[in-house]
């Protein structure tokens, strides 16, 4: 997914020089665009204001009638495209027209990825780096001041809120999660206790999960150095994953997509090293 690409700003224009839409047409147009992932700006001469123009390319939809869309008086600072909003054209035609304009302006293509990623509440975060140590997928990193931040949102595993459960302050939110406080609801004392219990996967497994997998790997190496019992190892891993899924709300498909124990151990070490470096004292000048 290409991050930082601007999106197309679609404007539903009903001011001077255009015919107003009926309420039903306005709703169905806006609704169809939103359902396809496009945002809509609806200016009004009657009440309120919208944000001023910025660098986002504009697509202005309106019922211009016989006069057609307005001519631009001077070269615009950003690309502006006018299109006729045909009455009763139907959502398919509308969306095809908007998608054509989007492609032409090379703006971000909406959709294709459920935006599932952690959001840090810095009012609560203590920069302890537990999330960075925990995540095997490189979602977290640190900024220039060694402050934890979410750096690779699209590496996050959809519907997996596991890192939020290792946060001792309940500072990690997934806004699309079903329940609080992970969804952004107010954090309560009882939440803090409950989250702590839920994330204590290690207590179910007799130790840190990555440590456990690492140890298992070591045991496996010595035990099966000559004749490795892959079936048994797989069974053990599956048992472990089932426990993880039951304890932490982690989707089974996420757990099943985890790499093998050796790779988990390698990534865990890498993450731990990043966290350690972030927490190390700064060198004195």
């Amino acid at each position, binding site marked *: 997914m290409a991050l930082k690409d601007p999106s197309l700003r679609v404007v539903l224009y009903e001011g001077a020089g255009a015919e107003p839409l009926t309420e039903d047409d306005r*709703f169905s147009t806006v609704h169809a665009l*939103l359902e396809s992932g496009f945002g809509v700006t*609806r200016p009004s001469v009657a009440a309120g204001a919208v944000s001023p123009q*910025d660098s986002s390319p504009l697509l202005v939809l309106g019922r211009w009638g016989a006069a057609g869309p307005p001519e631009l008086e001077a070269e615009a600072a950003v690309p502006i495209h006018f299109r006729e909003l045909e009455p009763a054209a139907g959502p398919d035609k509308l969306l095809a027209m908007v998608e054509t304009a989007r492609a032409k302006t090379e703006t971000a293509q909406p959709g294709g990825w459920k935006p599932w990623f952690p959001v840090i509440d810095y009012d609560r975060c203590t920069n302890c780096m537990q999330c960075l140590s925990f995540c095997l997928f490189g979602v977290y990193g640190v900024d220039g001041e060694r402050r934890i931040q979410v750096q690779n949102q699209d590496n996050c595993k959809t519907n997996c809120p596991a890192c939020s459960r290792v946060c001792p302050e309940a500072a990690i939110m997934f806004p699309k999660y079903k329940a*609080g406080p992970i969804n952004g609801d107010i954090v309560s004392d009882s939440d803090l206790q409950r989250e702590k219990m839920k994330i204590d996967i290690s207590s179910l497994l007799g130790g840190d999960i990555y440590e456990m997998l690492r140890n298992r790997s070591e045991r496996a190496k010595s035990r099966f150095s000559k004749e490795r019992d892959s079936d048994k190892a797989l069974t053990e891993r599956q048992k472990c994953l089932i426990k993880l899924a039951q304890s932490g709300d982690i989707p089974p498909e996420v757990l099943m997509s985890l790499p093998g124990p050796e790779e988990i151990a390698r990534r865990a070490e890498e993450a731990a090293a990043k966290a350690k470096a972030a927490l190390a004292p700064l060198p004195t000048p």
Partner: protein
Amino acid sequence: MASAPRILYCHCKYAQVVPKDQKELVLRALCDSGSAFEAVADLCELSARRDPSLQRLASNGSVKIAACFPRAVKWLFHQAGAPLVLDQTEVLNMRTQSAAEIIPELLSSEVHPNLPTGKFTAPHAEPVS
């Protein structure tokens, strides 16, 4: 005289966490109101993409946002490098408030800022309806 607050509606397209009826009632009311507004398909997606439009939406004066939990909205904007102005932003939560509560508040010219302004831990869990 202060200008009327801008209105931002989030359709939360990529998840089922906001009831469909609720979203459509709010959107319908906006479309019928004659007020200017901006609607986005999904604030989370824009935040993940660090879309420049969030900067436009966060600045330029007071704003009322119909979306989800204020704490989530505050940090979604922050994470995208477009922090909301704390004393000029009111978030209406379509996950917990009814459309009947949200619509008059959204269309009112008064802003009741409600973004969290620091660490707060409630003594008891707030039920999520």
